[in-house]
């Protein structure tokens, strides 16, 4: 058994974790949302072409609204009308169900829809919205895509290089040297008030914040004022009177500043890394945080087992909400007789195959503790681990216990580095437990004492994994069995009146470790993504707005991204107190947020306004960047690898967010009178 001094605490990253499997659904949602904006854009474009005299001079209106655009746009309109029809049908279906269930006429519409089960109509509506969105996107992006073919790398490069030189020669990059001031202070100064073991974590955090603040502000200033400044100084006149596509100016500016920020970010990351590697931080912190763990995660569920004898009969429950702000982590109640369990299931054979080759498989975990009583002094909360494979048969319990008695004279916690016995005995014990685990598909470790905000490691015999990997559960299990998981790790809190908080990424098998310095550079990619967003937003806004307004708009959107979780709760109506109209009603009526509002016709009408507000807010939410998704410094602080999948998926998110802005910039720039 190994216990690390201090480390990881609670991972807060998991809320943003998205795997490849979720992408198709996300893509569909993106098509619906971006398609909605494209349809709106298409409407305004048609209006502009019809009203503005410029198209007449440009040759013809047909050039600005091609036949392809008209046909695809028309199809999108038909699809949207069908989706509208389906929405009405769903609404009528909901009302019919409500009437059948005897709901009163005063019941709110929202409640009716929530009560209604999703059926084929919803599926058709969802699909039709996606189809309409895709058609609108194709129609709106057609001129953009065609003009992209006319872009020339040499021209874009020229403007990018100009932006680069401008920033350098106007000495903007000197601002970055302010960053170096941070390194004039010892690293330990940054870890004020924290444990020595957290020194590195705090240092990484401070460096990360400083870099984010400095680079983001500089990127904003550079990119928001570039095109407006060109227009104000009329330098743009000598550019647009050359055979330059308007979007080449946008692309050039964007790429120039992204290139500059990339170089500066690389340099600052290298300086930070040298600073961290050479700073005199606590040995334990260095040994813990200066790592790049490659974890194998499982799927977490909370269950309730009525009795020990009825282990098979598990009842799912959602865990206890202890009222902590971060509701993502749920708790299980402790105590010998507690029926609460947290179960992690591991089903990916490929990942487990690598683990099975190890002499001992590390299982790491970091739990949160919510104490109902003070507990015993200097004693942690005790937890038991029961790790089983799909082959474990509860009917062989007696046989399993007998094998343990034969090997150890009864149950015993076994680990390869057991300090209770001499190394040779520990090695022999490990071989024995490995053989038992391989034979039965079960390994137990009882009363593991844990403290808050610390990461622990439990060594699992590889025989258990070999047992899990032998055979194929899909073929070997009887027909009708529930979907098999190769391995299950069941955690029970043994301490009375203590609650154990667990989140999906709190427990994992440690597959391998990467290099810290490579991981540090990978972590910087997250900041790079955020800078790209800032630059893209500011450049896109500056194609139409003045520099200061572009700066403020991009800044507000970016800052809005930091509060996205809260904004999402407002948009979804999950926040305490409801929407603005409900809040207003509560204020007037003097009803607390916990109290029920009387469903009078007035209140029902006001709640409808809240629905409309939420709908509008959800649209607004689409333009606010999800900056939290690109904040990876926590991974570095806590010594986890920023893996390739995460980077690749984040790049897809980045592209998905930036694409509509770039198309908007294209249209704004195209329709702008440069000399007006």
């Amino acid at each position, binding site marked *: 058994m190994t216990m690390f001094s201090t480390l990881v605490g609670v991972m807060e990253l998991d809320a943003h974790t998205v795997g490849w499997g979720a992408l198709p659904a996300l893509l569909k949602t993106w098509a619906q949302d971006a398609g909605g904006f494209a349809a709106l854009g298409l409407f305004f474009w048609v209006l502009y072409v019809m009203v503005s*005299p410029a198209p007449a*001079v440009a040759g013809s209106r047909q050039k600005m609204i091609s036949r392809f655009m008209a046909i695809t746009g028309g199809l999108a309109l038909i699809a949207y009308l069908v989706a509208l029809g389906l929405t009405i049908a769903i609404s009528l279906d909901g009302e019919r169900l409500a009437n059948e269930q005897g709901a009163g006429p005063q019941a709110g519409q929202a409640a009716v829809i929530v009560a209604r089960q999703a059926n084929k109509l919803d599926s058709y509506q969802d699909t039709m919205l996606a189809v309409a969105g895709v058609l609108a996107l194709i129609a709106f992006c057609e001129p953009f895509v065609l003009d992209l073919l006319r872009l020339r790398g040499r021209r874009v490069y*020229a403007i990018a290089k*100009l932006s680069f030189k401008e920033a350098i020669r106007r000495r903007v990059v000197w601002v970055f040297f302010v960053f170096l001031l941070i390194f004039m202070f010892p690293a330990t100064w940054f870890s004020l008030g924290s444990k020595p073991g957290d020194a590195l974590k705090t240092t990484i955090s401070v460096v990360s914040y400083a870099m984010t603040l400095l680079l983001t502000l500089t990127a904003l200033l550079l990119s928001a004022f570039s095109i407006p400044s060109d227009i104000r100084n009329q330098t743009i006149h*000598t550019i647009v009177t050359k*055979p330059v596509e*308007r979007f080449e100016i946008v692309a050039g500016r964007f790429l120039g500043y992204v290139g500059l920020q990339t170089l500066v970010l690389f340099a600052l990351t290298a300086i930070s890394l040298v600073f961290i590697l050479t700073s005199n931080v606590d040995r334990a912190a260095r040994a813990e945080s200066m790592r790049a763990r490659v974890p194998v995660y499982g799927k977490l569920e909370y269950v309730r087992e009525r009795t020990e004898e009825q282990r098979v009969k598990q009842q799912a429950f959602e865990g206890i909400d202890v009222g902590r702000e971060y509701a993502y982590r749920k708790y299980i109640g402790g105590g010998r007789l507690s029926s609460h369990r947290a179960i992690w299931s591991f089903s990916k054979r490929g990942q487990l195959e690598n683990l099975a080759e190890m002499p001992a498989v590390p299982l790491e975990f970091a739990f949160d503790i919510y104490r109902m009583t003070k507990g015993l002094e200097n004693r942690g909360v005790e937890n038991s681990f029961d790790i089983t494979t799909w082959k474990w048969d509860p009917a062989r319990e007696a046989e399993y216990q007998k094998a343990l008695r034969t090997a150890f004279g009864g149950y015993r916690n076994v680990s390869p580095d057991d300090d209770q016995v001499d190394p040779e005995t520990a090695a022999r014990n490990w071989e024995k437990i490995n053989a038992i685990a391989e034979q039965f598909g079960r390994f137990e470790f009882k009363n593991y004492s844990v403290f808050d905000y610390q990461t622990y490691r439990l060594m699992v015999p590889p025989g258990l994994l070999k047992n899990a990997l032998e055979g194929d559960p899909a073929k070997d299990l009887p027909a009708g069995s529930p979907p098999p998981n190769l391995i299950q790790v069941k955690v029970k809190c043994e301490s009375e009146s203590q609650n154990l908080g667990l989140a999906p990424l709190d427990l994992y098998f440690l597959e391998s470790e990467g290099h810290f310095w490579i991981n540090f550079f990978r972590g910087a990619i997250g900041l790079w993504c955020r800078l790209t967003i800032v630059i893209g937003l500011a450049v896109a806004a500056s194609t139409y707005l003045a520099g200061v307004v572009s700066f403020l708009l991009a800044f507000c959107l970016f800052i809005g991204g930091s509060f996205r979780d809260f904004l999402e709760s407002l948009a979804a109506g999950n926040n305490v107190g409801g929407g603005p109209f409900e809040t207003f009603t509560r204020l007037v009526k003097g009803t607390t947020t916990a109290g029920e509002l009387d469903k009078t016709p007035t209140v029902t009408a006001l709640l409808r306004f809240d629905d409309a507000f939420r709908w509008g807010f959800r649209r607004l939410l689409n333009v606010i960047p999800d900056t939290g998704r690109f904040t990876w410094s926590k991974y570095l602080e806590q010594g986890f690898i920023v893996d390739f999948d995460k980077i690749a998926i984040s790049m897809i998110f980045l592209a998905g967010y930036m694409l509509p802005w770039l198309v908007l910039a294209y249209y704004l720039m195209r329709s702008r009178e440069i*000399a007006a």
Partner: protein
Amino acid sequence: MAEDYIVETRSLTKVYRDFWGRKKKTALNALDLQIRKGEIFGLLGPNGSGKTTTIKLLLGLLFPTSGEAFVFGQPAVDVRKNERIGYLPEESYLYRFLNAEETLDFYGRLFNMSSSVREQRSADLIRRVGLENDKKRTLREYSKGMRQRIGLAQALINDPELVILDEPTSGLDPLGTIWMKELILDLRKQGKTVLMCSHRLDDVQDVCDRIAILYNGDLQENGEVKKLVEDAKRVEMRATNLQLTDALRRDLESLVQKHGGTLESVGHPTTTLEDLFRRVVEESKARPGRRFLPAGKVKV
């Protein structure tokens, strides 16, 4: 549109409006204009007459309110026409943190020129505009005249067929003005078409083949310079090796009266100030040193 028209406008109108779409000013009103290949065409008019607006409409910097504008037969808003155009704005709006070489390299790239072509063109143009010794200095260190020269160089980087010059002699000293006018005439010799606007009438008269005069957005006059400035009611005679005597004056008077005219004046012609300035500078270059001495002083 006739093939030899490089520029043509039909009822071209530009109305400036405020944010709410209310009319602020009619900058150009139903302009009909044709510019033929190989001519130097001047747009004349006082400030605010619509000269620069016309040029901006032809370059696609502004969109017309009504009417049409074509350059090389293509709509004015089509960027592809810019391949064949060179443009020198009124003020040389260039990036002042670049030096002359970098400036021309940048604009050369915008024409998608290869590196070797850019280098050669840049070197030729820098030599042509007389900035060889200053090509490594950033433009912020340049005088206004130097900036105008590098501005012209950028306008010629693509060896354009149509050169549009907005107040080309603005800010230039007399020598610079002469140099610019010679260059414009040289462009015509090369078969290029030049459209220039200016309110320096002497410059326009010296170089332009045809002119259009705008006032308050309306076209007031359009035609060949020679014909427009010709005074058909008057006759000018010049003679050499003659002494201006009273007898000569009387004889001339009777001769003119005999043909039904009236003699207005007889005298010695004067040269232009420009010719005088040019001669003095050229002589000073040939023989450096002070030329003018106050009365009573003797040159040593």
